[in-house]
């Protein structure tokens, strides 16, 4: 799973390393767009744009859906970024609790040192 997450991160970084792809994300941040619109906007061939959109799609940054003959692109759920942020929040929550727990363990250590009879272990 760690490797899977790393693969995901690599895909995201690779996707974001290209200025056209960053431009596409910025554009889709304003509103959804078709492949044709993106090709016009970035002055690229349909094939070229499809390639870029494909890389963004692989990384989970963009989703596409075909309606009739038009393929519409929109920003993906950005699940990876959201999940990473949540896990960092979750880590900090436990970190704060464990800082408090640290001081209680310290306090118990002192008490047991003063009063060794109460200690549960030799």
């Amino acid at each position, binding site marked *: *799973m*760690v490797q899977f*997450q790393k693969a995901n991160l690599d895909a995201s970084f690779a996707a974001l390393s290209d200025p056209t792809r960053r431009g596409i994300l910025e554009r889709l941040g304003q509103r959804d767009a078709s492949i044709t619109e993106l090709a016009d906007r970035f002055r690229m061939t349909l094939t070229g744009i499809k390639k870029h959109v494909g890389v963004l799609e692989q990384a989970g940054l963009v989703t596409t859906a075909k309606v009739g003959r038009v393929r519409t692109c929109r920003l993906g759920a950005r699940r990876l970024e*959201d*999940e990473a942020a*949540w*896990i*960092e*929040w*979750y*880590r*900090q*929550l*436990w*970190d*704060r*609790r*464990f*800082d*408090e*727990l*640290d*001081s*209680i*363990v*310290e306090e*118990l*250590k002192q008490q*047991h040192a003063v009063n060794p009879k109460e200690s*549960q*272990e030799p």
Partner: protein
Amino acid sequence: MSNPTTAERKSDLELVVTRTFNGPAHLVFEAWTRPDLFQRWWLPAEFGMTFDSCQLDARTGGSYRLVFNHPDFPQPMAFFGKYLEVVPNSRIVWTNEESEGGPVTTVTFEEQDGTTLLSLTERYPTKESLDEAIASGSTGTAGAAQQFELLDELLGTLV
């Protein structure tokens, strides 16, 4: 200087948190199972919440019930479940039953040279339930989205 805390999503179903404490396992276990001590660390002051009550019957088959107050809560929030397994100084397993699809939490204490490696695993029943917990910003042990927002606000200033 405190030891680092790590957290990761270990699988589709599991979150794992680790931390080393500079003391023997029986003291960490004691702080986790004695209500008077537990109340002093589970809600650090900046969470903005206080214990209304804290009942821990920390033995296999026993149950627990935590009730928190916060000025913004319309009414106190309760968190409760059962201890599926309690092995003194080594392992505690409990359910989180305040909401559907809550995880089973396992905490283990491994002592080495007077320090204790604590590992906490929250295992959700399905991938969807963990995804949903993440999406809604709740955690099995800490609950409500309100709490997430409060903490987010607070912790956002620390990042």
